[in-house]
C-alpha cells in the first residue's frame, strides 16, 4: 500500500526523463544531418540563389531576377537540350520497361533453374562505371566497331557509318546505350515482383484456360504496379540527369544533336563563364525531375 506513491513518483520522473531523452535522440541524427545540410541542401539553395544573377564566376555578379529562366526558354541550344533529354527518356525508360515487361510475361509462368547466372549478367551494366560503359560504346559505334561489323556481316554495308558522328543517328545511338544499361534492371525488378505473386492466381488463370497473354494482362501486370512505378522513376531520372554517357560518347555533338541539360550546366558554368545561367538550368532540370517523380508516384498510388 505504502509503496504506491513512490512508484507513481518514479513513473512521473521516468516519463519526464523520457520526454527529455526523446529529444536527446537527435544527438544521433545530428552528424548525418549536418553533413547532408552543409554539402547537399545548402549548395542546392545556393544554386537557386545564383540562378538570379548574371555572373562569370570571377567579377561581381549582376542581379537579373528571372532573366536566366527566360533565356532558357528562348535560347535554341538550351531548349534543344531539354528536348534531347525528353527523347532520351524514350530510350532510357520506355523501351527498357517494355523489354522488361515482355520478357517477364514470357518468363513468369515457370521457375527456371540457372536464373542466377542470367541475373548476374543482366545486372552487370548496372554496377560498372557509366564512363566505362560510354568508352566501350564509343568504340562499338566507331567505324571499325562491332555495330558496323554486324551490319557488314549481314550484307548491309550501305548503312555502316560512324554512328556517334551522324547527325540523324547520334541521339538514337546514345539512347540505345541507356537501353542497354537499364533493360536488365527493369527486367529483374519485374521478375522479382512476379515471384511475390500468389501462385494460386496463376493456377486459377490456367484452369480458366488463360493463355500467356491473357494471364499476363489480368494476373501479372496488376501485381507489378509498385515495380512499374519504381522502374519509371529510376529510369526517367537517369535519362533527364544523364551526363556521364553523353560526355564520354559524343560530348553533345555532332552540332548540338546530343546535348543534354547536364552537359550544358557543366559547360556553361566552367567553360563559358555563365554561372547564373547554368544554375538556372540546373534548377529547371531538378524541378522537371521532381515533377515527373511526383506525377509517377501520384498516379501509381491513385490506382491502388
Amino acid at each position, binding site marked *: 500500500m505504502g509503496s504506491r506513491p513512490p512508484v507513481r513518483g518514479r513513473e512521473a520522473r521516468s516519463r519526464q526523463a523520457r520526454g527529455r531523452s*526523446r529529444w536527446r*535522440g537527435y544527438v*544521433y*541524427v545530428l552528424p*548525418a*544531418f549536418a*553533413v*547532408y545540410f*552543409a*554539402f*547537399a541542401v545548402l*549548395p*542546392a539553395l545556393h*544554386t537557386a*540563389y545564383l540562378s538570379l544573377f548574371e555572373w562569370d*564566376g570571377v567579377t561581381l555578379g549582376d542581379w537579373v531576377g528571372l532573366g536566366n529562366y527566360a533565356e532558357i526558354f528562348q535560347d535554341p541550344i538550351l531548349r534543344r537540350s531539354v528536348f534531347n533529354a525528353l527523347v532520351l527518356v524514350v530510350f532510357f525508360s520506355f523501351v527498357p520497361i517494355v523489354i522488361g515487361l515482355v*520478357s517477364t510475361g*514470357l*518468363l513468369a*509462368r*515457370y521457375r*527456371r533453374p*540457372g536464373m542466377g547466372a*542470367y541475373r*548476374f549478367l*543482366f*545486372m552487370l*551494366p548496372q*554496377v560498372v*562505371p557509366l*564512363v*566505362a560503359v560510354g*568508352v*566501350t*560504346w564509343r*568504340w562499338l559505334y566507331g567505324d*571499325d*566497331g*562491332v555495330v*558496323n*561489323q554486324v551490319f557488314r556481316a549481314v550484307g548491309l554495308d550501305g548503312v555502316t557509318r560512324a554512328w556517334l558522328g551522324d547527325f540523324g543517328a547520334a541521339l538514337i545511338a546514345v539512347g540505345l546505350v541507356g537501353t*542497354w544499361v537499364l*533493360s*536488365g*534492371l527493369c527486367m529483374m525488378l519485374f521478375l522479382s515482383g512476379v515471384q511475390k505473386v500468389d501462385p494460386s492466381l496463376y493456377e486459377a488463370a490456367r484452369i480458366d484456360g488463360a493463355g500467356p497473354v491473357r494471364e499476363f494482362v489480368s494476373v501479372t501486370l496488376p501485381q507489378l504496379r*509498385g515495380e512499374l512505378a*519504381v*522502374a519509371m522513376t529510376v529510369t526517367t531520372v537517369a535519362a*533527364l540527369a544523364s*551526363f*556521364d554517357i553523353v*560526355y564520354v560518347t559524343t560530348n553533345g555533338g555532332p552540332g548540338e544533336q546530343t546535348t543534354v541539360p*547536364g552537359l550544358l*550546366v*557543366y559547360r556553361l558554368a566552367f567553360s563559358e563563364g555563365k*554561372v547564373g545561367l547554368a544554375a538556372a538550368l540546373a*534548377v529547371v*532540370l*531538378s524541378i522537371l*525531375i521532381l515533377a515527373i517523380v511526383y506525377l509517377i508516384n501520384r498516379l501509381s498510388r491513385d490506382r491502388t
Partner: protein
Amino acid sequence: MNTVARSERWSGYALLTVMAIVVVIPFLSVFLASLQPAGTPVVGLTWPERWSWDNYETAWSVAGFSDLIRHSLVIAVGVVPACLVLSALAGYALGTMNLPGGNAVAAFFIAGLTIPVELIVVPLYFDLRSLGLTNSYLGVILVEIALFMPFSVFWMRTHFQSTPTSLVEAARIDGASSATILVRILLPLARPSLMTLGLLVFMWSWNQFLLVLVLIQDTTKHTAPAGLGFFVGQNSTDIPTLAAGTIIVMLPILILFVVFQRSFIAGLLQGAMKG
C-alpha cells in the same frame, strides 16, 4: 499440354540467352581489344592472334591508371565508413526512438533522394574553392557522403524499423542506455544491411564522375572514371591501351560484384523499391 510447356520453357531460355549475349558482347569486345598488340588498328570482335597482356602494363604504369585507382580507393575508403557510421546513428534514432518531429526529419532526408548532382555542383565548386577544398580528396569525400546520406539514412532507418521492438524494450527495462542498445544489440543484427549498404555506397563512390570532374580539375589527381574520361579524349585512337584502361577501371567493382553478387543484386533491387 506437356509439349507446350516444354516448348515454352525452351523459348524462355532462348530469349534469356539472346539477351545475355547482347549484354556480354560489349564487354567481350573491349576485353578482346585489350589483348591486341598495341598500336594496331582493331576491328570489332576479333580474336587476338596472340594474347598480349602488354597493354595492361602500359595502361597501368605509363598511362597512369595505377594512380587513378589509388585516388579512387582513397576517396572510397573515406566515404564508405563515414556513410555507414552516420547513417546507422541517424537511422537508429529515426527508426526506433519515436522522436518528436522524427517523421518530418526523415522526410527531409528522403527528399534528397532525387537530387541530381547537377543541382549542387556549380556553387559547390566556388564554395569549396574558397575553403581550399577543391583539388582535394577531402572535399570530394564530404560531398559524396552528403549525396549518399538520403539513401543511407533511409536504408538504415528501414532496417531498424523492422527489428522487433521487444528487443529494444527489454534492454531498456534492464537499464541499458540508448548507446549500449545500439552497439551491443542492434548493430550486430544489422551486419547484413550494413554490408549491402557499404557495397552500394562503394559502387556509387567509385562510379562518381561529374562531381570529380568539377571538384578536381588537376588531372594528376583524378579518380578512375574521371581519368578514363580524360584519357579517351586525349588518346581515342590507341584502342588497345584504352580498352585495357577501361577494363582496369571496371575491375575492382566487377570483383566485388562477383564475390558479393547476392548482396549487390538484393541491394540494387530493394534499394530501388524502397526509394
